[in-house]
């Protein structure tokens, strides 16, 4: 009865102070997947059968374990952790998927050292209602072991993993349950007990798991991390003494970060194509954020650039387009990070020494394209390129401009020339027209389009365009006519379909207007 009651009312508010377990289906019935401090004090252990847990604690709160929500929450936390380091990885499934790895090489000094960084992290996570377990070590394996089986905030001195790990239980090596129970039956309990042993017997019995994990923890083999967001090619970050609010201040901060990044890129002869400015909001306890207080601002460039003034200008234009809501915060931003996601080679270019004024600066054009795209939207700036098709609406495409495209496109346009006349303005969709023709398959004599009757004074055509069988069915053969009405307006009409015994009657459409 009690379990039914619990299951029937899963939306009951949870009292965090009372024993609470999350259950997942397991061997022999639902088992405890996760539990809070009060439940642990009541003697419940992770992995226990729910019925046993109920026997131990009378007033137990039970909820189903929503793994998806758990993973989502962890992912959001990873986004939050980007404020400390650009590379943040989740524990993979094998290691429990209950935490994060941060690659803090070169980042700790920004917070005043590793100790201060951990203190800051702990304070913020506690403020957010989480109970963190933190550790720093040379390898992710050692950091995992220390965070799970040592005091919170343990920092392993560089190169001292072996000593730090010696006293820890073997479970700290992220081993599978079977391997762990076998080791216990063999009487091995501490990591130190297997560290000095000959490797061959272990390798024979435990395959790669045991020695592999041990080597990873000790730094003998590398352990690649899979970061939540691809690590930026270049990055810079800054914390502010006072929270900042206004667009101007954000741009000043971005400019400073860009100068840092530009120096790195100059060293490598690279330029940024895709950048992301991350703004970290001051978090309020009352209103938890969906995105853990990170406001991202993505900037794409038409050509690689490392010019801080140019990129800052683009950010300004982008913010102008997004409007007020882009930077809506309660308490302002306390930190910012700039990540260069895509970088391309950018070698210095020499301006050709020509004495006439007939030279253009290609960088001025790409800069213009960038500014227009940031202000008007990425799809606003287009270049037309021809496509291999006879069907008029398929014979060209509008693409995003790119350097060196203009040259190619010009040549393609020169090479590719349709036989018949083409209108400079093409309607997005062919529009139906009521046409009267003298003979059924002749040119129109008069037609009504958009409610206006046009008397045709002259017509040329037809130009027959058959549908391309490899594209789609249902298209009909078109006979295009160029007609001029008595007032001198010129139209491009076509008759879809042929006069055939079984076919439906052909229909007329206006497809474009001539100048």
């Amino acid at each position, binding site marked *: 009865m009690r379990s039914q009651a619990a299951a029937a009312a899963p939306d009951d508010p949870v009292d965090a102070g009372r024993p609470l377990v999350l259950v997942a289906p397991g061997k022999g019935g639902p088992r405890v997947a996760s539990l809070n401090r009060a439940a642990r004090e009541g003697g419940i252990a992770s992995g226990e059968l729910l019925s046993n847990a109920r026997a131990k604690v009378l007033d137990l709160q039970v909820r189903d374990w929503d793994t998806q929500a758990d993973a989502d929450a962890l992912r959001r936390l990873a986004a939050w952790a980007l404020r400390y380091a650009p590379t943040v990885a989740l524990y993979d499934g094998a290691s429990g998927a209950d935490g994060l790895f941060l690659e803090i090489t070169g980042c700790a000094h920004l917070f005043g050292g590793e100790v201060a960084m951990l203190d800051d992290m702990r304070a913020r996570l506690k403020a957010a209602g989480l109970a963190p377990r933190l550790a720093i070590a040379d390898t992710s394996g050692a950091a995992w072991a220390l965070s799970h089986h040592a005091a919170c905030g343990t920092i392993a001195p560089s190169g001292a993993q072996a000593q730090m790990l010696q006293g820890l239980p073997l479970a700290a090596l992220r081993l599978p349950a079977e391997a762990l129970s076998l080791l216990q039956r063999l009487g091995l309990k501490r990591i130190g007990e297997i560290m000095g042993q000959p490797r061959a017997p272990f390798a024979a019995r435990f395959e790669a798991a045991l020695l592999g994990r041990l080597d990873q923890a000790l730094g003998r083999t590398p352990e690649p991390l899979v970061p939540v967001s691809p690590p930026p090619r270049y990055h810079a970050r800054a914390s502010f003494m006072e929270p900042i609010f206004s667009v101007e201040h954000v741009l000043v901060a971005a400019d400073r970060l860009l100068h840092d990044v530009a120096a790195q890129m100059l060293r490598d002869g690279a330029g940024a194509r895709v950048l992301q400015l991350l703004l970290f909001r001051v978090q309020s306890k009352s209103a938890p954020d969906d995105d853990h207080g990170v406001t991202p601002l993505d900037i794409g460039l038409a050509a690689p650039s490392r010019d801080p003034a140019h990129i800052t200008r683009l950010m300004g234009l982008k913010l102008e387009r997004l409007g007020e809501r882009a930077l809506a915060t309660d308490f302002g931003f306390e930190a910012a990070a700039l990540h260069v996601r895509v970088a391309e080679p950018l070698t210095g270019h020499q301006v050709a020494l020509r004495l006439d004024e*007939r*030279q*253009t*600066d*290609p960088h*001025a*054009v790409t*800069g*213009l*394209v960038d*500014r*227009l795209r940031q*202000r*008007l939207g990425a*799809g*606003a*700036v*287009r*270049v*037309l*390129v*021809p496509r291999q098709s006879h069907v*008029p609406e398929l*014979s*060209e495409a*509008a693409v995003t*401009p790119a350097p060196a*495209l*203009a*040259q*190619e*496109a*010009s*040549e*393609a*346009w020169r090479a590719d*020339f*349709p036989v018949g*006349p*083409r*209108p*400079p*303005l*093409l*309607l*997005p969709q062919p529009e139906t027209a009521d046409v009267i023709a003298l003979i059924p398959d002749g040119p129109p004599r008069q037609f009504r389009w958009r409610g206006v009757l046009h008397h045709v*004074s*002259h017509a*040329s055509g037809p130009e027959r365009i058959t549908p391309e069988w490899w594209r789609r069915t249902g298209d009909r053969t078109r006979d295009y006519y*160029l007609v*001029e009405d008595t*007032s*001198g*307006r*010129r139209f491009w009409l076509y008759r879809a379909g042929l006069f055939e015994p079984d076919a439906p009657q052909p229909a007329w459409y206006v497809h*474009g*207007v*001539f*100048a």
Partner: protein
Amino acid sequence: MLQRRFQPRFVSPRSSAGGDEVGEAQGVLEVLGSRSPPLPQTPARVAHTAGPAQAPSEKEQHIARLRAALVKLESCHTARGATGLSLGDLDAHLPGGGLPVGVLNEVTADYAHRPAAYGFTFALMARGQMRRPGPIVLVMSRRALIDFGHPYGHGLAQLGLDVGDLILVEAGKDVDALWAIEEALRASGSVAFVAGAISGSVDLTTARRLNLAAASAATPLVLLRGGKEDAGPAATRWRIATAPAARDPHGGFGRWRWQARLERCRNGRPGLWNIEWCHVAHRFHLAEGVADRAPLAQPGRSRRAG
């Protein structure tokens, strides 16, 4: 068709040859019609348009100097020293020998004739490509595009445009389009031509901003606009209407023809012409009268031997 040509003439007060008759017109700019009979008191040498080739006299040099000075004074918004964009047969009617560059030129049309205005603008863009290398930028607001569709590359190429060098910019609103036009004009002269199409009209402040932006690099600027209001500091304003196209000898279509009415022209005079666009030579021709049109249907032309 207005074919009268007016030539502004200066009469120098200091010229020795002119005598006292000229002295009456001290510092006054006289506008004389070239077709009007020569005024009796004006000596033949002042009417320099028709005389036989002579070495330029001191007076004629002076006249040339004054003329240049006046152009400088009058074109406060025109780019210094820039010559106009040559348009072919229309050049003689335009100050500076062509479409003024570095200033705002407006093109308007009645609703039904708006495609023709587009065509005229495209032709001007093709002309602009000949003058200066670099991309041409066409900014269109979404509402200006709604009725007659999007620019179509194959059709533009047939008008003589190098489509590969054309950058199309689509803006949601007129305000954004005007911003984009100004931005393109300020791109340090790397753009060969800037054209815009908006649904409304331009206010005075925006037009001044565009003038200033265009003048910095003497970029040709043409704005195709809707809107009825005609106030605005545009250097030229054209009203385009379509006209029946020329016929080729085989009864097909020849060059497109438009009726171009120059409604406003700073330092020049309005006019009305029937023009046709030659997409090969990239120039406008004055169309001949309608009398040379091939008959619409020639009886007996399609006779066949049986």
